[in-house]
């Protein structure tokens, strides 16, 4: 870059610097929050990135792992969430999570997006329109029930999947998300909560809830016909590979976007996310190389997703090399869960929603208590105005216990809510497909289509 260009750039930056300097001595401008074009641009892109994680990311990742006759049915389980959860979120979901209410659930003041407009909601994100915040958070509510479908893949009716997911959102996702992120939420250390649980991007809200619910559904619905005697290898790992890579990229919106601004905190979360994913992939490949002699492609992408799920909780609280440690632990522990423990216990968590998201979310929650540091995130203040110590590395080992309590509350809500949702769905519609339909495949029996028409 020539000196001349540098000079021009410096000149262009001048007005911004000048404003920053004249602004700072003035009284806090909180009364008139100003929209930042940069923040809004980043948050709109982040919202789109998180939507991309569900479709096509998760849809491709999951559909490649099932048998050929279930490819469309599996993709539809993700895509339907994009349609149905969107509407529920706009009608009342957003309000139940982010409106002021009690410690466990918001009230209905934002129902039908009433009062959600161009003006920011200063409680959460003072520099972006309230609408941007609302649509960004919607994408998290979409992917969470979609993750659960991996546990009961290839054997549940479409209508039951939808009804179950709807009930589940009300019983598990909305309360837990309000408790962790909502104003006055029981576990929200930043907005008046009782027990401080640090969950930057949804390790508890998304991964623990979906992962443990997944385990409950897998056990409730039972194994697929023929499992585990019959071989059921993935029908197209190329699709899964593309899906996993889209998940990796989309996760930047998920984690770095959770800074809710185009800030240095977003950069920090971006880097932590990327490093943990890489470490997870390397760890899983090493584990497969040791145990099977060959590191597989499915192993590499599974490790990356495990690293991503595990770093989600701490992404905006931990240093880069803490994220590497988190990713490595995620790769080894999640591999052990799906390759050793699942095989021993013989439950059919078909696409390892529990083994990757539940287990990864849980250890990520605890590791956040270890590695969270005010050097990365100084949002939480002590009474004297200094940044509060966060995790064990800041000399606050008690935070690990707080994180554990948060995880347990998440697990209890997930297990109880899932059991109720399963019972109600079973009574209303039945849950599982008939053995004959299962044998024919979801594509034909549920949707009347085939994914691959080789003869046409």
């Amino acid at each position, binding site marked *: 870059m020539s000196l001349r260009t540098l000079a021009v750039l410096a000149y262009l930056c001048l007005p911004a610097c000048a404003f920053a300097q004249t602004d700072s001595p003035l009284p806090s401008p909180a009364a008139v929050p100003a929209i930042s074009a940069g923040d809004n641009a980043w948050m709109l892109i982040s919202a789109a990135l998180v939507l991309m994680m569900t479709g096509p990311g998760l849809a491709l990742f999951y559909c490649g792992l099932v048998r050929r006759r279930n490819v469309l049915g599996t993709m539809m389980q993700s895509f339907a969430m994009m349609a149905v959860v969107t509407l529920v979120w706009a009608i009342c979901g957003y309000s139940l999570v982010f409106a002021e209410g009690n410690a466990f659930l918001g009230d209905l003041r934002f129902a039908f997006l009433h009062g959600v407009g161009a003006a920011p909601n200063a409680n959460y994100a003072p520099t972006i329109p309230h609408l941007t915040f609302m649509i960004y958070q919607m994408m998290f509510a979409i992917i969470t029930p979609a993750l659960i479908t991996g546990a009961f893949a290839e054997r549940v009716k479409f209508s039951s999947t939808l009804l179950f997911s709807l009930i589940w959102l009300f019983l598990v996702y909305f309360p837990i998300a309000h408790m962790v992120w909502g104003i006055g939420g029981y576990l929200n250390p930043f907005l008046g909560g009782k027990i401080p649980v640090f969950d930057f991007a949804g390790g508890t809200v998304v991964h623990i809830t979906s992962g443990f619910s997944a385990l409950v559904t897998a056990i409730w619905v039972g194994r697929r016909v023929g499992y*585990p005697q019959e*071989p059921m*290898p993935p029908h197209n790992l190329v699709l899964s590979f593309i899906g996993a890579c889209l998940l990796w990229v989309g996760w930047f919106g998920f984690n770095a976007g959770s800074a809710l601004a185009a800030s240095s905190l977003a950069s920090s979360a971006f880097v932590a996310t990327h490093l943990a994913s890489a470490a997870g992939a390397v760890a899983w490949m090493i584990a*497969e190389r040791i145990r*099977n002699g060959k590191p597989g492609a499915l192993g590499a992408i599974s490790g990356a997703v495990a690293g991503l799920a595990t770093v989600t909780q701490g992404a905006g609280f931990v240093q880069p090399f803490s994220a590497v440690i988190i990713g490595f632990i995620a790769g080894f522990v999640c591999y052990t869960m799906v*390759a*050793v423990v699942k*095989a021993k216990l013989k439950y059919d968590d078909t696409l*390892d929603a529990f083994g990757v998201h539940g287990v990864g979310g849980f250890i990520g929650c605890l590791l956040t208590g270890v590695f969270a540091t005010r050097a990365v995130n100084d949002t939480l203040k002590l009474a004297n105005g200094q940044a509060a110590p966060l995790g064990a590395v800041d000399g606050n080992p008690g935070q690990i216990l707080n994180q554990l309590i948060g995880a347990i509350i998440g697990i209890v809500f997930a297990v109880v809510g899932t059991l109720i949702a399963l019972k109600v769905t079973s009574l209303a519609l039945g849950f599982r497909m008939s053995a004959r339909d299962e044998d024919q495949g979801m594509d034909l029996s549920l949707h009347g289509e085939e994914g691959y028409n080789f003869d046409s």
Partner: protein
Amino acid sequence: MYKIEAIIQPHKLDDVRNALKALGIDGLTVTEVRGHGRQKGHTEFYRGQEYKVDLLPKRKIEMVVTNDRKDEVIETIVKAAQTGKIGDGKVFVYDVGDAIRIRNEDRGDAAL
């Protein structure tokens, strides 16, 4: 008239076809088949779950030849398809009662 049926390694198909072409055999049928003989299958791992694949892909070549060409055709196929390792396949030879060319109703050797 004999029918010669050879089950060979998939990657040997082109070698066998070229050798037969050099011999002047220009009518044959090829099918993708799966099976196993003495060759053991292989093991695949998906997230640590082990799958034994014991039906292996092979190619089946079928052709019908006149009595005097039988031996040279068999020898050609065996030579072209041989690697010396387990899994090379087998050749089966059958007597054929008759052959009819549908286009003009030629019969016997004339139909080949």
